[in-house]
């Protein structure tokens, strides 16, 4: 019995599952300390996610931006760069989406493709700027990307605030053209009689019609797959991983380490920006003046951490994260518990997962005790 337990402890996935469990337990304790019934809290957490197909789809929709920033962080991490700048890159994508979505009229299909490619390029350049600073001046990417986050944030506010952009009497840019939107069904469709008739006819499509589900989900899946393939099956990916694990050995093996840092941050920045553009194109439809960044990039760091920097892992970590958030809203809505409790739970989760590598060692110690 005991050896099985110890062997299980040594598997990395056990560590993650255990971390999730500990996160839940501490979440329960926090709930109880706040005077809320933890059992009811958790049942709300689950019903908040699983009680309807629309909610489950919503989890998927909400996961898109944070999976994208998660991918951006983990891809850079795999190549040895700590990309704190996913937030700024994401914002650059939002700006690109909002501006090109409104000011550059184009036929359907081409319009979104054009925006996505542009957003990827702009975010990529923005990301690789940090790598260039590192190559050229030795400025650490953590410092430069944090600064670039602020620059992006203020840039967005500046753009929104321009007389020619801001919708009078509002705090946001004009709504993007319909051709630029990438949801499967338009938002208006739900509100029309035609939409209601459609829903009555195909009730199983409710989750798609009544959420912002769209091509963003497919693009997210493709990006996840693409980044995984790049890392695992291409020569460039091989170089990037080598640089990530051991810069010096990669340099010594005649790999173009500096060019690769640029490339890695280009791909990472582009991925984050794609997330930002897709958020505008499927959900928000414009960008607003904000008092603080919405923190999609910071969520991405947590997602990447939970995922152990694995692209496929980011997909699941993003779903978990967005599920917890949505379920957490339900705890707040029905129990009146502050969102902070959910945030504490997610925080503990990330902390536990950061601690997870110690688990196999712990298992070894246990093993020796058992043997003794």
């Amino acid at each position, binding site marked *: 019995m005991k050896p099985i337990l110890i062997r299980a402890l040594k598997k990395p996935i056990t560590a993650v599952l255990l971390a999730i469990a500990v996160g839940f337990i501490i979440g329960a304790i926090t709930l109880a300390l706040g005077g809320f019934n933890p059992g009811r809290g958790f*049942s709300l957490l689950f019903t908040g996610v699983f009680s309807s197909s629309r909610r489950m789809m919503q989890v998927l929709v909400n996961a898109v931006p944070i999976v994208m920033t998660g991918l951006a962080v983990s891809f850079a991490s795999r190549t040895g760069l700590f990309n704190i700048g996913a937030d700024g890159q994401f914002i650059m994508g939002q700006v690109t989406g909002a501006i090109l979505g409104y000011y550059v009229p184009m036929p359907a299909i081409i319009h979104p493709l054009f925006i996505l490619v542009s957003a990827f390029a702009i975010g990529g350049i923005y990301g690789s700027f940090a790598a260039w600073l590192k190559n050229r001046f030795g400025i650490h990417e953590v410092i430069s990307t944090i600064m670039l986050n602020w620059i992006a944030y203020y840039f967005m506010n500046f753009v929104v605030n321009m007389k020619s952009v801001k919708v009078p*009497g509002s705090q946001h840019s004009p709504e993007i053209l319909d051709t630029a939107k990438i949801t499967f069904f338009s938002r208006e469709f739900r509100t029309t009689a035609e939409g209601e008739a459609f829903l009555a006819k195909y009730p199983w499509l409710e989750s798609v019609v009544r959420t912002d589900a769209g091509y963003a989900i497919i693009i997210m899946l493709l990006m996840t797959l693409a980044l995984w393939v790049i890392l695992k099956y291409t020569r460039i990916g091989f170089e990037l991983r080598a640089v990530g694990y051991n810069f010096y050995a990669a340099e010594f093996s005649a790999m173009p380490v500096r060019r690769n840092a640029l490339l890695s941050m280009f791909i990472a920045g582009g991925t984050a920006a794609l997330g930002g553009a897709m958020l505008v194109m499927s*959900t928000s439809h414009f960008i607003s003046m904000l008092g603080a960044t919405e923190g999609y990039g910071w969520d991405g760091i947590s997602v990447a951490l939970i995922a152990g920097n694995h692209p496929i892992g980011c997909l699941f970590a993003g779903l978990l994260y967005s599920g917890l958030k949505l379920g957490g809203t339900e705890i707040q809505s029905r129990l009146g518990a502050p969102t902070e409790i959910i945030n504490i739970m997610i925080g503990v989760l990330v902390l536990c997962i950061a601690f997870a590598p110690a688990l196999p060692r712990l298992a070894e110690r246990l093993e020796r005790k058992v043997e003794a």
Partner: protein
Amino acid sequence: MKKRLFSLILVLALLLTFVVACAPKEETPDGKSVALITDLGGVNDESFNQSAWNGMKQLEEDGFKISFVESEKEADYAVNLTNKTEEGNDLIWGIGFLMEEAMVNAAKEHKEQMFAVVDVGFEEGAYSNLVGAMFHSEESSFLVGYIAGHMTETDHVGFILGMEGDVMFRFQYGYLAGVAYAAKELGKDIRVDAVTIDTFGDTAKGKATATKMYSDGADIVYHAAGQAGSGAITAAKEMGKWAIGVDLDQNELAPDNVLTSALKNVDQAVYQISKRVLAGEDVGGKTFFLGLKEGGVGIAPSSDKHVPKDILDKTDAIEKLIIAGDISVPITQAEFDAFKADLG
């Protein structure tokens, strides 16, 4: 491998049944229920969201069921609205004009649900299930303008406007009219510098603008510029001048330098409009303006700290005149011009 997958599915299935079985049945409340969805601030933001939540708590005391959801991101507005709709509330509040689009979309999508939104006005009857709550900010601005007119020693005051727009001009012309009214009473000319800074967020800009006004000779500056306006208060503190706060009692930001504040009582709006909706009154499609009469606006209670009693008494008298309709406060340039002409 297959076996493992199977057992995994089995465990998941068990877990789900467990959760579903455990989920306690939602008690259907006899009383009616109201829900609040905050903008990015959250219910403890010491600003509108919190004020709105205070109004909700008043409803709770009256026996209604209340709940709230905080929006962490703009994208959450629509989702939270849909979730709250599914919960079956009698009324759902959205706080702040940032939520305008989300509220309109929700109202269109969920035609059976009643919504209300603070700080947004609609064309009468545009959406049959959406109520707007606006404020006669010009009335409170008139009062603080009146106080400023009486208190200025340099006969020179300032005004900082965050953004242009119909709603925002109410502050400006109310204030200008109040100052003019006081000047007329005192029989002198008072100069007003009014500047629009095109931002609600840039504190530094607010501060720079106010500093300029003070060094030009103004000794009182009123701001209607949100976060950016707190910079004006900082400037007053640093230069030892008066500032007038807006929306909330901002005296605590600079207790020795905030003369008074033009309040916007969001809690009153939430409370009063909710009561009418819950009483079954058909107010859908209407936009309510709350002024001095309804307690929707006013001047801060802390005004007595710095404003002499005689001036406060006069201000009370002016308030009564406005409530009675004897003074009609202008909200546009044209109305203001007419107002001035009337004053003579």
